[in-house]
């Protein structure tokens, strides 16, 4: 499992011609020039920031909306609750890819084509059903006495949610955050279809451009791949348990 990853890391630190002669040799004398070139020539800085803005923006929107919807659906009993819950669940079944054509035309009409905001809204919509499902489960599991105690103390419904319940569903928020953020960060398909301006491109989309430009400059290519994978790998090594739980949420109960 680790060998390909090691090969990638090792090769990224070797001079391209040297790599072509002996692909297996160890990088005894790390050739950092590759990384410098990727960073300065490849627009990686701006790709990186775009990915950060799009993933971060989507994540904030997903968490805020899923907290609200999860709270209402998980904790209130009202007519239509099950119906709305069922409707949101059907959203989980629709893959964004198959609705890509109407989305393209609709975004064009809404003036959201080639816009980071447009992409953020699509990602939010795609992740929201599962996020709401997970959050409502966490809200349901909290004792109802909490609500009544807070209400007797004079808390408004909004205060009850923000001051009493939100701190208690933090583990759920972590799961939702990882479950939603990683596919967004890693995605190249929607940016490929919806973002055209070079200055708006995301990291994974940019990588496809970069690969065309630097064909056969092995060291630089491997350095680019490493840089693109690095942020998530570092986060994963620090928060591996949360990552594993977050990414398998929905497939593993409890």
């Amino acid at each position, binding site marked *: 499992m680790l060998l390909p990853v090691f090969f990638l890391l090792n090769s990224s630190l070797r001079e391209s011609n040297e790599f072509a002669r002996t692909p297996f040799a160890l990088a005894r004398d790390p050739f950092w020039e590759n990384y410098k070139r990727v960073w300065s020539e490849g627009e990686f800085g701006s790709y990186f920031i775009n990915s950060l803005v799009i993933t971060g923006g989507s994540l904030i929107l997903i968490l805020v909306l899923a907290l609200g919807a999860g709270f209402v659906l998980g904790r209130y009993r009202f007519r239509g609750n099950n119906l709305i819950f069922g409707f949101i669940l059907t959203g989980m079944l629709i893959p964004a890819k198959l609705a890509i054509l109407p989305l393209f035309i609709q975004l064009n009409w809404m003036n959201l084509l080639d816009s980071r905001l447009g992409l953020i809204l699509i990602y939010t919509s795609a992740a929201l059903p599962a996020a709401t499902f997970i959050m409502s489960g966490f809200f349901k599991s909290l004792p109802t006495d909490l609500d009544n105690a807070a209400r007797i103390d004079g808390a408004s419904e909004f205060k009850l949610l923000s001051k009493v319940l939100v701190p208690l569903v933090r583990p759920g928020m972590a799961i939702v955050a990882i479950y939603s953020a990683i596919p967004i960060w890693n995605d190249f398909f929607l940016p490929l279809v919806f973002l055209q301006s070079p200055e708006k491109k995301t990291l994974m989309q940019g990588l496809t451009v970069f690969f065309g430009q630097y064909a056969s400059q092995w060291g630089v290519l491997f350095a680019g791949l490493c840089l693109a994978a690095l942020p998530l790998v570092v986060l994963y090594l620090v928060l591996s348990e949360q990552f*594993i739980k977050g990414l398998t949420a929905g497939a593993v109960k409890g």
Partner: protein
Amino acid sequence: MSSALRKEQNRTIGALLIPALAVIIVFTTVPALTTLSYALFSWEGFQRSTFVGFENFQKLFAYPYLDQLIAALRHNTTAFVVIMTFQTSLGLLFAYAMFRVRRGLRFYRVVVFLPVIFSLVVVGYLWQSLFDPYYGPVNQIIAGIGFPELAKPWLGDTSTALPTLMLINLWRWVGFPAIVFLAGLNAVNSEYIEAARIDGASEGQIFRRIIFPLLAPSLTIITVLTFIGAYEWFDLPFVIGGSNGSPAGATDTLALMFYRLSFGSIDSGANNVGVGSALGVLIFTLVGLGAAFGSALLRKREVEQ
């Protein structure tokens, strides 16, 4: 419940539920439903033209699309069967090994799951260079152990491209079923295993007769997810073979064909939004029905613990 509280709750429902519903309706539900209507019209580029009923579906099932459709469907089905057989078994094997291991469980979990967090762009390019005909380590290893005649352009040869793609898929995804099965194994009541052991059952018997049947819920989930993934297989084939499923359509899938019809490509020329939407509807129906049917069927076989 007091009427003041009831009123406040109704306001809260409105304020918290409507934004979420609006986003889902505008960016998921409406586009999904419009795909259906798109399939019923003829198109000039991205301009809708006349209502043609089911003509786009008829076109999809005729020359020149039918051959592509059949080939793509065959590749998706092969992917489902092969991934289900090898990736899932290996995942189960890893899970069982991690279940039995005494030390270093955390380390193994982290390693097995690591590729799952990689972007498929990174995975695709990494493996493309590993399988590179000239510089790739795979061929060098094959030549190094004395079989230079077996070295070949794995991803460039029509007979090996699809199997190689499935191998890469295995490396990237095997951690997923492994973790799901591990969670299933941990949920098995250890008293059953103890009781069987006292009765003198062998490890193999314990696994086959007790553990495996109790893993049925995990197997159901993995089967359904694998089915959906296999019939919507797009990212890895796209990164490695491009939208035409190179070489010579050997790695073409339904989703790639859908992409070509939607946006056009260098080989197949202009797009055809109508036929593309018809294919989109077909894929969605196939995946939806298959997943619903399959999970109902598999759930029946699950046993109570």
